[in-house]
């Protein structure tokens, strides 16, 4: 009786508004229970993808329990309700359902990918994982062991060393400066109570953002949303916002001496947040600077002209509480300082002059032309639609986005480049012997033999 009544009610109350962008039509669905989601229907293949995030991530973990969000998300699918880990995974694997959770600095992320046929089971399992995770001792200790082993094997990875050293220097005193995955010690300190408390405080509807893509109608999605998320608490009163981060502008160089044949260099400076009105100008700048692979200045100067590196690139990182401009390069020890000089010169050049007319046009043509490439798989579309909602870009964003890019002017690039790029404020981390090679008198000339041994 109750079920029948509910089904009728759903048909009546699913509200939708839609906007047709590119080949993807996006609509907003509100479930009978009041949960909103973006939906891009595609009935070509019997596949449904659902992505979501809950604001508040690893940056909220206490210092002594760092890694808590990572461990909790790894355990949500290790047994829930009356199903232990084996039973839970068998249900999923028998039906080719992929279900996963993770946490980044700012949010808890989840996704499920399922065939239409198995979707009802998939949604039920997703609900169980979030509302009744068991944290049985076997999977808890297993996952703890796995995290500790991973942390150990990554501890000497030069890229990891470079990135954690850089983040610690850029965000000293802020949660972003911590190693979000924790240390073997902090992971050892996490108790089952901590994990249960994490579920109680972190998972709530008031910080939930959902997108669905594929073989599902608005009415079916409305039902699914309530089934998956309906019995999460409306709010846990969690304050997910972080203190504003002041990114270091000290302009320091940190050398982490390691006997490596190639130095890894990571560079960071303050950037802008996603909500900044100059975001699109910064995207255009970054493409020409180092984000645009072979079309970028850094690739041209460091790799194509000089052969100093295989990989060099820049990016704009936008976290909730801060933005960063970052550059990474891997280069022979005795040429590390030369690479660094070339990169610093490029920071100065773009700060002084912005882009050329030709670069601006090239960047616009690439960024607008490549936009539809984002919509080539269920998972990618769902993730994009979650980001669109998180950043409050609107239902018509997929269609408007290219206009934002096209409206960037040459004077915009000069104005924004002048304040964005700060060659004197770069925090530089060199992992390897790159700094040492610089101190040695012979460094500018011949390559020391010892470095070629591996």
């Amino acid at each position: 009786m109750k079920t029948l009544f509910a089904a009728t009610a759903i048909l009546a109350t699913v509200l939708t508004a839609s906007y047709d962008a590119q080949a993807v039509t996006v609509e907003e669905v509100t479930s009978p229970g009041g949960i909103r989601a973006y939906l891009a229907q595609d009935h070509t293949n019997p596949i449904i993808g659902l992505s979501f995030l809950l604001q508040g991530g690893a940056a909220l973990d206490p210092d002594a329990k760092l890694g808590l969000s990572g461990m909790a998300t790894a355990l949500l699918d290790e047994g829930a309700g009356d199903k232990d880990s084996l039973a839970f995974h068998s249900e999923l694997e028998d039906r080719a359902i992929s279900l996963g959770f993770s946490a980044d600095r700012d949010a808890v992320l989840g996704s499920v990918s399922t065939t239409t046929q198995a979707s009802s089971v998939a949604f039920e399992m997703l609900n169980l994982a979030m509302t009744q995770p068991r944290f049985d001792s076997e999977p808890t200790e297993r996952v703890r062991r796995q995290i500790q082993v991973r942390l150990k094997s990554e501890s000497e990875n030069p890229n990891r060393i470079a990135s954690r050293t850089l983040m610690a220097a850029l965000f000293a005193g802020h949660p972003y400066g911590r190693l979000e995955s924790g240390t073997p010690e902090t992971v050892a300190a996490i108790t089952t109570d901590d994990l249960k408390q994490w579920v109680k405080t972190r998972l709530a509807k008031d910080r939930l953002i959902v997108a669905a893509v594929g073989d599902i109608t608005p009415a079916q999605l409305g039902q699914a949303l309530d089934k998956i998320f309906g019995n999460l608490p409306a709010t846990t009163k969690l304050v997910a916002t972080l203190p504003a981060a002041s990114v270091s502008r000290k302009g320091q160089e940190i050398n982490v001496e390691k006997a490596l044949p190639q130095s890894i260099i990571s560079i960071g400076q303050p950037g802008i947040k996603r909500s900044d009105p100059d975001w699109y100008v910064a995207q255009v700048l970054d493409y020409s600077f180092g984000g645009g692979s072979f079309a970028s200045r850094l690739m041209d100067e460091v790799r194509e002209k000089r052969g100093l590196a295989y990989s060099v690139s820049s990016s704009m990182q936008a976290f909730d509480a801060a933005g960063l401009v970052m550059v990474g390069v891997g280069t022979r020890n005795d040429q590390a300082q030369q690479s660094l000089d070339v990169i610093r010169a490029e920071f100065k050049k773009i700060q002084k002059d912005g882009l050329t007319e030709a670069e601006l046009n090239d960047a616009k043509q690439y960024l607008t032309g490549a936009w539809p490439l984002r919509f080539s798989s269920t998972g990618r579309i769902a993730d994009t639609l979650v980001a669109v909602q998180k950043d409050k870009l609107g239902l018509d964003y997929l269609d408007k986005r290219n206009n934002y890019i096209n409206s960037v002017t040459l004077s915009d690039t000069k104005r924004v480049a002048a304040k964005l790029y700060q060659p004197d404020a770069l925090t530089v981390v060199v992992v390897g012997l790159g700094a040492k090679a610089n101190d040695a008198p012979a460094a500018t000339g011949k390559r020391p033999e010892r470095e070629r041994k591996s």
Partner: protein
Amino acid sequence: MISHLFQRVLLIAAAMLLAVPASAELYGAQGSMLANGMQIVAVPNHRSPVVSHMVWYRAGAADEPPGASGIAHFLEHLMFKGTPKYPDGIMDEVVARNGGDQNAFTSHDYTAYYQNIAVDRLALVMEIEADRMRNLILDPKEVATEREVIIEERRMRVSNQPAAILDERLDAALWLTNRYGIPVLGWEQEMRGLSREDAFAFYHRFYAPENAILVVSGDITLEQLKPLAEKYYGSIPRVGEPNARQRSADLDATANVSVTYSDVRVRQPQWWRKWIAPSYNAGNKADVYPLTIFDSIVGSGSTSKLYRALVIDRKVAAGVGVSYDSAAVSYGTFSISMSPSPGVSIEQVQAALEEELAKILKDGISDADVARAKERILAGLVFAKDSSLGAAQGVGGMLVVGVPLEEIEDLPERLRAVTADQVRSAARKVIVQSASGTAILLPKAGG
């Protein structure tokens, strides 16, 4: 496991070959052949007005002349330098200005070039790709600079990674005279000697329509692709016979080898073993599908037999990975890797694995296990068609090692036809009788 694909530029989160190949409608690919011997394939997916345009050459690192290791991969880099029509690296700019991404990658058996781009720009990238199939020009100065780039690539991918250093040694010991024992990136000493002439020799021998396969996936049909392929690729003359792909497949020495490497940069020990296994082209080909099912039973997901035994029940390993690579011109490989749990020695974890494998091979694979694994694999096949851009890689990676399109598409039927006895027998042949190489990666004191 260590990947043997090397690409021109590092991609973050690159979706490489789909692990699962093809259905009666696995991909729904459509194929044809040009008069000059170039195979063409369309994999329609109309979700977004974009295509992935790929040209696969039946030539890779295993086709290199002795002493010139790395030339296939070096040529891959040099292919972006230019032609008289698109000189000085401007093809990158042209593709980017049209909203396209392009890259390339090299393995032992093939070299592949691709552009992901809006379908209304497809003709442009076909023109560029066809142009550089025969009209490459190489400035000696650019060759010299790019040689430094590939050596940096080797430093990044191998010298800076202890596991990669060991894997190279393992392959050299395991494959002996088979060309798969030579690293795709090349040995550093030989890379330093690679010349413009070496690159041209490889190029002129192999870059020709009879050695190439065109695969376009996305918003395209074969009917639409055919006239474009005729126009841009159809006029390129044959150079000679298709590459015979000699692989010195003499593997009758069945010695098992073990290679140990200690490095101060290693904190967590690792163990892995590779067995030489049948592929679509070498060894007992009838065992390919049974081994695909065996791979799933022992290694797929946290309900698999080895994960349950070693990680959940005995707790000797923190993780276990299993993979079976059957898409090869010569033999394939079956691999198992493990990270020992804290306090567990490499010897203990290896002994535990060997015990569990022996149990599984003796009487551990039930008819129900096989039936269940089949259902799981079949249920997942629908996802192969999902990515409009990724499908070109899934199809191309099989075609280029000689798997016919019909067989790629027929995967569900081939899997259904496998019996439990075939799985048991194929597994025993590989794990018990095949040559294997074991890698042991250890910390070194003083680190």
